[in-house]
């Protein structure tokens, strides 16, 4: 079960990484660390794509991983820009202190 490395091993690793990232998004208060946890989730997706790409012997999965990385870069840049604007206005980076839209 442990020894020949099959795609299932990679998929279980991807699931574990996804779970860790989801806990980070749901449970942390610091917005910078929430953005880092989103990067962890996107990396879990990439692990799955590459595992199937390797197993099927074609590179379509790697091309999709390139698109995922593109979206991750865009998300990080815009998210950090929003974070800087938020910190300038509210002087806080705690997610549950930014509650103007809550009633």
């Amino acid at each position, binding site marked *: 079960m442990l020894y020949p490395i099959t795609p299932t091993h990679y998929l279980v690793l991807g699931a574990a990484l996804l779970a860790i990232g989801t806990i980070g998004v749901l449970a942390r208060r610091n917005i910078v660390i929430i953005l880092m946890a989103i990067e962890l989730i996107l*990396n879990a997706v990439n692990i799955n794509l590459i595992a199937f790409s390797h*197993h099927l012997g074609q590179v379509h999965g790697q091309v999709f991983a390139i698109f995922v990385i593109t979206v991750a870069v865009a998300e990080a840049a815009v998210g950090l820009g929003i974070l*800087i604007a938020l910190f300038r206005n509210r002087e806080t980076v705690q997610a549950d202190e930014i509650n103007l839209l809550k009633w």
Partner: protein
Amino acid sequence: MWVDAFFFYLFAAVTLTGAVLTITRRNAVHSAMSLILSLIGVAGLFLLQRAEFLFAVQIVLYVGGIMVLFLFVIMLVNLDQAARMRQFSGQWWLALACVLAILAEMVYVLNRGSRAFQLAAPATAPEGGNVEQVADVLFKQYLVPFELASILLLAAIVGSVIMARKRV
């Protein structure tokens, strides 16, 4: 090949250790360093599966680009007060329980269905190096998504500059 198995477990341990440290550290700079460790582990897994181009992209773009951006923002935003405050929101135990339940379900289903992955005999490696193959598929079959990705990046550049400007 036991070498493959050894490196798989090594890189998997590096990845998961870095990930757990990322979401548990109090200091955001330590979190960023742990995330770099985790991303390097993922890059090693890419190399193990002969995705050399994505290995280089992962190192150059993630570790060299995104993480430097994160560190810049951590330095710009004053996080000293945040490090002294409560780190986890009130419903952290609920989040933990839900995520662990979903993880257990995923692992169970993957184990049950692991025989279904024997789709065909592991295919013979195509001609040419990895970069040639990726470029061939990317520029022939995925040309329109490629151009759309460049438009997405342009929009992200403009958006982040406007967001971080002095007068919003």
